[in-house]
């Protein structure tokens, strides 16, 4: 058993050479690491009002409190939530967010004029909210005419994982996790957008489930 575990750990170490960090999606790929394009996590859950679905896209992770005040959204980075409601994994609706230097402007949910890797802002702004400053004592929120609630600003990173012990397993200096483990994301922040959307705006999905994914895209 011990030998097998060691083999597994050694195999992992071989595969992940090159200092790849296993977080959720934090710093997952060379082209986005350390930029405003880096998505850390996507969440989708039923709201406190069960007629709504909530989507959370977190970006620019591992912000120390001392770095959070200076962290900012990027007007050249589009944040897009894609929603497939007929099971073909092609987006039928998008919700887009773009920063203008003061406000986060939201578009949709709307059927995009084209699908895939290239996007443009679709339709007109459906909700906008001032980005909550780090110094704020309470979050700034707004509700669009379509009933969509929106938020943008720094929050605690909700992700939790004993990343450092995992590094030791990869490096072959540990054979397993500790109990209790230590949350490597404790005390760090992310830049979040949160939208709470009436389910009635999302259509009736085939088989009762939507397929959802988030993308960041850079201005061409």
């Amino acid at each position, binding site marked *: 058993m011990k030998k097998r575990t060691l083999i597994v750990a050694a195999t992992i170490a071989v595969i992940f050479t090159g200092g*790849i960090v296993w*977080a959720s999606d934090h710093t997952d790929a060379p082209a986005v690491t350390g930029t405003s394009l880096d998505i850390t996590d996507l969440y989708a859950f039923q709201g406190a009002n069960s007629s709504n*679905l909530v989507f*959370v896209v977190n970006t620019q992770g591992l912000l120390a409190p001392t770095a959070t005040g200076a962290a900012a959204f990027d007007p050249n980075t589009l944040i897009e939530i894609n929603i497939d409601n007929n099971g073909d994994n092609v987006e039928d609706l998008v919700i887009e967010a773009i920063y203008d230097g003061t406000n986060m402007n939201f578009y949709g949910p709307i059927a995009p004029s084209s699908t895939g890797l290239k996007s443009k802002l679709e339709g007109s702004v459906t909700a906008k909210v001032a980005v909550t400053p780090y110094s704020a004592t309470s979050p700034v929120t707004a509700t669009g005419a379509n009933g969509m609630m929106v938020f943008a600003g720094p929050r605690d990173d909700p992700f939790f994982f004993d990343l450092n012990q995992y590094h030791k397993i990869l490096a072959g200096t540990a054979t397993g996790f500790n109990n209790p483990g230590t949350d490597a994301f404790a005390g760090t922040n992310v830049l979040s957008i949160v939208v709470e959307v009436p389910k009635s705006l999302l259509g009736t999905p085939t088989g009762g489930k939507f397929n959802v994914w988030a993308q960041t895209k850079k201005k061409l």
Partner: protein
Amino acid sequence: MKKTFSMLLAALAILTIVGSSCSKSSSTPATVTYYMGGDAIGRPAINTVFVTTGSKDSFNNTIPSVMEAAWQPKFQTQLMALNPGFTTDALGQTASQFTGLLATDVLNVSVSGTTTFFDGTNVLTGRNLSDDVIHTELLLIFGGSDGSANPTLSNDNVPANDKPFLSTFPYLASPW
């Protein structure tokens, strides 16, 4: 450079329009701004765990509808490298089935009822802030058909966030 190229394209487009309609319209079409290339995520940690170094940007730029064909075989190779003893996971999936599910990197979200990555009963009906998604994924990768295999690798023993979440919008805890 890029801008010059875009302007050339725009000029060509105008020429084409003018040429095809034989009109002498001098109006300039509104400039459309496009966005492309960046990060992508469906389920947590998929790119990081199942995509090998050197392919990660490529994975981020694969559209979900073609992901299974493009990535399932590579994911299966990676799964068997991570856990050579893998036969079936706790959901009863074979390596092929499990990696086929994961290769299409989208989050499945139920339109009604409980939304969770895994809560002991419901599986892949969403993702809550409080869901211990790493434990779930480690269990499926290392835990075998009943979750008991490789116990020191199948749980990182960090079951919750370091700050309580809010019960109302925007749900996420205030920053540190």
